[in-house]
């Protein structure tokens, strides 16, 4: 099962990398680029039954305690297609 986890800086946290990318886009003429936030993306091949709550809680723990730092980051988990029951 392929699980995708997106980690981004919280809105309250300044993102100097994203700001630099945004400035570069403006310099290149992409004036529509109002804001850029840079984050991280993880793909996890998971061998387990994701219909079970306990199994999903393990992924939540991985995302919240290891892949992201709750002081500065938030995360979003994208579950495999058809596993959203």
């Amino acid at each position: 099962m392929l699980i995708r986890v997106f980690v981004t800086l919280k809105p309250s946290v300044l993102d100097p990398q994203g700001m630099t990318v945004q400035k570069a886009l403006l310099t290149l003429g992409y004036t529509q680029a109002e804001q850029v936030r840079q984050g991280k993306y993880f793909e996890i091949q998971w061998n387990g039954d994701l219909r079970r709550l306990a199994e999903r809680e393990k992924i939540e723990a991985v995302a919240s305690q290891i892949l992201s730092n709750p002081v500065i980051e938030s995360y979003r988990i994208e579950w495999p297609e058809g596993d959203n029951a």
Partner: protein
Amino acid sequence: MKAGVVVFPGSNCDHDTYHVLKHVLHMETRFLWHGERTLPDLDLIVLPGGFSYGDYMRTGAIARFSPLMEGIKDFAGRGGYVLGICNGFQILQEAGLLPGAMLHNRGLKFVCRQVCLRVEASGPFTGAYSAGQILRVPIAHNEGNFYAAAGDLEQLERNSQVLFRYCSPSGQIDGRSNPNGSLNNIAGIINERKNVAGMMPHPERASEGCLGSEDGRGVFVSLMQSIQGRFSEA
């Protein structure tokens, strides 16, 4: 007086720190391999600077799961002195032993230069300095932009948990003297119990005259005095 210097894969200030503790301060000093599960009898543990686990994922994020970290948490829980320098500070934050987190430097560059620090609070890690003393100590980091949620920051300030702030040569705390964007110019903090401290500047690189500054040695001298104080109390 026994000190231990933790060696993670990717630590690169471990030998410098060992040298200062053992050959400058003459403490009984040993290296502690991160994979060990038990700690020897110690009075002080230093987590040195470097790039533990290549800074993968986030600085310090993987080192905090090293087997030895459980022992270090117990040691800190018993009141033992723990000092994290640079990457060691980041690891202590990831491990939850110190509040806040480090963001990328505001200027997005790795900053490696001498900075001025103002001593903000007295205590076991700074007792050898006078209040407001200005130190010259080098920094060398890419993620040293101290961040903490508003409530945590307020608590740090209220409890005098800020040990050092970046300042101008005359001691002014301003934006120009802030090398990385740290909130309130914070360069070093201590926990509420005042036995676990972290600092981004490298005192071990400023502990001998031949290195251009001896201003960092006071951190280790302070710790020696604190440990001696404990011995005489006991």
